[in-house]
């Protein structure tokens, strides 16, 4: 899975995800964890691969990381940002 034509941008101390050309005409405001996950999803990847990166960068237990990643991925999927 990967994000489909999505720009992740830092703006005024926040992270935002904007879709280019998809059906989602809005903008998602992301916390730093969600932004990290979104960046990892700019290339073809899996939940497990993202979890590896999250655990490398943050002091967090793997199962908690996986749950967070799955929640964020689901939010992206709801607004049609994911190319499966």
């Amino acid at each position, binding site marked *: 899975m990967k994000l489909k034509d999505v*720009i992740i*941008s830092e*703006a*005024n101390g926040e992270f935002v995800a*904007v879709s*280019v*050309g998809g059906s989602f*005409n*809005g*903008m998602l405001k992301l916390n730093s964890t969600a932004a990290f996950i979104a960046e990892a999803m700019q290339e073809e990847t899996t939940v497990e691969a993202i979890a590896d990166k999250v655990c490398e960068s943050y002091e967090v237990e793997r199962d908690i990381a996986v749950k967070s990643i799955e929640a964020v991925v689901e939010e992206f999927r709801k607004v049609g940002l994911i190319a499966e």
Partner: protein
Amino acid sequence: MNDAVTIKQVLDKEGFIIHKIKGGSMLPLLEEKQDMVRLEAVKEKDKLKKYDVPLFFDKKTGTLVLHRIIKVKKDHYITYGDNRKNYEIVPFDSVLAIAVGFYKKDKYIPCDDPEYLKYVKERCSSIRKRKLYLRKREIPAELRVLIKLFAQAVKNDGVSMHVEKDIGEDFDWQTLYKEANRHCIGAMLFPYVKKAGCPEPLLTLWSQNADRALRKEILFDAERKCILDEFEKEQIKYILLKGILIKDFYPKKGIREFSDNDFLLEEKDLEKAKKIMLKRGYENKDSEDFVDCPFYKPPVFNFELHKALFRSTLPISKYFKDTWEKAIKDENRQYGYHMTDEDFYIYVMTHFYKHYAVNGGAGLRYFADFYYLNKGLVKTEKFNNKYVNKTFEKIGISEFIKKTTQMTEQLFSGDENLFSDEMFAYILESGMYGTNTHAVANKMKRDGKAKYWITRLFPSKEYMAKNYPSVKKLPILLPFLWVIRLVSAVCSKERRDKFTEERSISKNVENKAQK
């Protein structure tokens, strides 16, 4: 007349009378139903002085009036209400009494009180001062709040402009919202209208608009990078113009609203650039005219490719013919160039002038551009102000720059005298992209009425080619097409109404010129 008789009787008996104020013609000095005036009988009715406030019988209206003497003539006075534009001619024998003092919230203020005399001097001492004061008072609360919140947003120094007293029960938030959008400052104002108490659901709509502005900027930044990468591949030289660079002087992303991005290209590369844009899915109108050649693509994209900074028909264009000779190569791009800071500033301010004086007007956002450019560019040590000022003089816009500087200082220091400034009123009316009324009036002032109407009724071949492309190949058709155009205009209610509007503008321009 009964009131006059009664008051006269009291004055004859007591020598004075204290009376409640009716009407608002003497605001802000005297408030109806709240304040009172002490009137004394006048022995020598022809001996009153300028700025005295007599009570007189107005034969025209059949009422008693309490207004201020502005001029003393041989056999009459000229009076105005402090809050009125129209004057009265008051024969000496119409005067019944003279005000000697006022009761404001039960405090007595005699007419020789220093604070009262200061009020008279500031508000009433000349027709011009009175008009300026009245014009200031006419600005609706919604515009006052717009201006104050704008100043607060741009300065962002934590100093409040105190809009609470302007936001009464009747305050129209929708009008504030519309005006903010008309001046392209809605996104900038959002945090401040929230604090000022903007109600729902308008607040949510405003928030969504602010988010849309940020999204638009992010999308444009990404798309512009892709387009410039293609230009680099095709060896097309380019200079980024206006908002693409100005926005980086703003303190936050997404608060400088805009409609498009502009590139300056060399004429030889225009067709190549056009092919790139079309390949990227853009639609293009006016493909023959590369002075302002727009390319559109959903959801938001609008890029303009320019072969010149200004149309060659504008006199100011001759000062910008050497842009490429003076341009400096970008460090990180092979075909990207930029103007010097000074030339960039000159160009931006001339562009502002063009919108203000030549097109239909310019809006408040230009003041934010001016403020941030001055802060981040002009006031830096290396900036060559001498060269810039000399160039403004050559172009003929020094007075405009001076006036803009003065208005910017007033705007951001909260000086409310700005509200009565004619140029500022024009800018408030204009909005960001000007109005048709202003555009027509500017053209008439520039070209003269006769030339304006001739070109309107008998436009050039290039203008006619937009709706009648056949005239390009067969110019002989031009006179026939003029006739067709005139006949179809007569048959169209919309165009007849437009003609009536332009005639009215023409009359206004003539009247103003005669004054």
